[in-house]
């Protein structure tokens, strides 16, 4: 047996080598590489008539709800924009991939996208974003991340559209202080999910607590924790009056409802992903309406103002039966941001990846007509928006969120990490 295998090996090696030489002469991949240096100022995914953008979203996994709203918002924006002639005389098209909230699938899909698209119009899911961070930088791939973590800002190619989680918490706590819900010396609770989402919000609550003379009691939980009775009981024991929630919507409902049921008179402030209008159909509705506030830079579905009103009208016309969430507003706003970046790059005459980055960093006041606060991308690595809404759950209106306070930024929020 061993005698037979050696000539075989030699045969394999010889044939392989000769085939290698013979076949690579006509390799399908080699042709592209030749004229790389003298390419005109259009990059991957750009032709004379179209610009291709990539979307890496979650349609089947844990964040499918958010993913769907964002997709609908994007579709509304680009349908209109493309009908009006597109950007830079080109129509914008999308290559959409579903990673199902699995980092491996995201990396695989990305390796396809990177050869086909100019930039990523959407990348959803913290673990997937984290997994792709180094590749985005190597590939110079400008990416609109559906995440509000300020840690992402370290990567120049990641575009955060809105106020970050830490800013949300800073503004939230300051708003409570202004309205007499907390005072110097108080303890505030913070129930947070593991990871970027929770950590970034915690950085904000810690900074605000320091500023306001408060102390923070932390409870870290996992996405699979369904019942927060024990955490709420522990916070109550500690005499906490205000609880910050950087959680999933179901966990928010659990925490608030448990407190209400136990007669625990606390106020809850949620990060923006901590709430979903679907909660208002659950038994927790009354408790949420009574005790929860959300600090968010995304306009609620029913926000007044020109931008939201227009999106609302076109959404109801296009998707009459679909859930009305502020993710639609967000998706639409992302479209606006991407359109402005592309337009700026077009003006500079460089529809390439480096051109896009340069254009992006030149935008210091992106206005989305009230969908998001004004965005300043002129200072790389810095937080782009510092204003938030304070909204209250309200089952009587579309989208389930009523504005309690229009865009504002607390003094600390304005100078935090600036």
């Amino acid at each position, binding site marked *: 047996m061993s005698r037979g295998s050696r000539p075989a090996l030699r045969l394999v090696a010889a044939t392989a080598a000769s085939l290698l030489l013979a076949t690579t002469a006509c390799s399908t991949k080699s042709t592209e590489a030749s004229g790389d240096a003298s390419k005109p100022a259009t990059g991957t995914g750009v032709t004379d008539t179209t610009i291709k953008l990539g979307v890496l979203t979650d349609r*089947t996994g*844990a964040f*499918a*709800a958010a993913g*769907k709203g964002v997709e609908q918002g994007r579709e509304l924006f680009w349908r209109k924009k493309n009908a009006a002639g597109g950007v830079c005389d080109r129509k914008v098209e999308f290559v959409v991939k579903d990673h199902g909230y699995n980092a491996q699938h995201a990396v695989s899909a990305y390796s396809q996208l990177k050869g086909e698209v100019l930039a990523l119009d959407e990348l959803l899911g913290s673990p997937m974003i984290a997994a792709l961070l180094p590749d985005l930088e190597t590939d110079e791939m400008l990416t609109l991340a559906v995440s509000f973590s300020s840690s992402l800002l370290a990567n120049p190619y990641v575009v955060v559209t809105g106020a970050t989680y830490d800013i949300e918490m800073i503004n939230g706590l300051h708003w409570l202080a202004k309205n007499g819900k907390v005072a110097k010396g108080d303890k505030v609770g913070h129930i947070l999910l*593991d990871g970027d989402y929770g950590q970034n919000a915690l950085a904000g609550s810690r900074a605000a607590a320091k500023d306001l003379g408060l102390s923070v*009691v*932390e*409870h*870290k*939980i*996992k*996405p*699979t*924790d*369904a*019942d*927060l*009775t*024990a*955490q709420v*009981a*522990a916070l109550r*024991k500690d005499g906490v009056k205000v609880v910050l929630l950087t959680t*999933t*919507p*179901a966990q928010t*409902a*659990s*925490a608030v*409802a*448990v407190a*209400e*049921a*136990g*007669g625990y008179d606390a106020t809850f402030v949620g990060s923006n992903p901590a709430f*979903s209008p*679907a*909660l208002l*159909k*659950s*038994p*927790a509705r*009354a*408790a949420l309406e009574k005790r929860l506030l959300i600090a968010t830079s995304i306009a609620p579905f029913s926000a007044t103002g020109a931008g939201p009103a227009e999106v609302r009208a076109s959404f109801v016309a296009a998707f009459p039966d679909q*859930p009305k969430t502020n993710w639609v507003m967000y998706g639409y706003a992302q479209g606006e941001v991407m359109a402005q970046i592309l337009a700026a790059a077009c003006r500079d005459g460089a529809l390439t990846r480096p051109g896009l980055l340069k254009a992006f960093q030149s935008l210091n006041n992106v206005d989305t007509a009230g969908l998001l606060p004004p965005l300043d991308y002129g200072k790389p690595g810095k937080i782009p928006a510092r204003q938030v809404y304070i909204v209250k759950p309200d089952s009587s209106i579309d989208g389930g969120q009523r504005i309690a306070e229009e865009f504002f930024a607390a003094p600390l929020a304005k100078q935090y990490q600036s």
Partner: protein
Amino acid sequence: MTHLLQLLVSGVSLGAVYALLALGFVVVFRATEVVNFAHPALLMVGAYFTARFRTVDELPFPVAVLLGVGVAVLVALAVQFFLVRRMSGRSVIAVSIMTIGVDVVIQTEITRRLGVDILPMGDPWQDGVVHLDGLTIPQTRIAALVLSVALLAAFFAWFRYSDWGVAMRASAENPETAALMGVRRARVAALAWAIAGALAALAGLSLTTFPAPGLEPATSAVALRAFPAAIIGGLDSTAGAVVGGLVVGVTEALAQGYASELSFLGLGFHTVMPYLVMVVVLLVRPTGLFGTRELHRV
């Protein structure tokens, strides 16, 4: 002190639900020697159909529950009849791995049907609570506890005294003799799966009512805790399942409630606690607290 009591109450009521789940595992294991990894799927099926019948078809709650349990039982029976039964004589591990496939398929379908929403259960208790000596206990938890205790009592009474129960015990203890005595193993196995389906559905109901907002895909992750519960008690001990469930429920609640005191172990340690307890128990008793030790013959 109130804090501790509150945690214990919360832990026991959660533990009772785990006990229902663990009992389902154990019953199936005793009857068919299969570790049913599709148990979380049965839970999802039961809870999903209960919620659907209640909130979409607007049936009265008890009817919706009965129908939901019925669907879970049917699914369990289908798994036993079309899949597990056909694999009789194969290694326990092979059949158990097969149920992983069943779990994947069923859960994918339920998650797909659930879509993006949280499906409320529409139960009559809603967010009602009972105040008791400084403790606050949600009505749903009391209902879950009463339901669990009633089901467990009924099960054990039936298991001990009814002909079927005797048949099941005989079949588990000595299959050959039981067969000679005329116990039809296939029927006993079917019965065990039906019981497991019903228990899982009712546990699912308990896990999705207040303070949980309703059924969501993540609900099934809770069912995984029944694994350590069943193992701690011993996979072939029905009483062990109850003890294991309570141990896991109370451990988890305590680890959560005293999270700040346990922070040196890393935040979120409560999710690891049940498994840690399980490994310790297994090191002392390799077949769980009440499990029978295997005898080896050459």
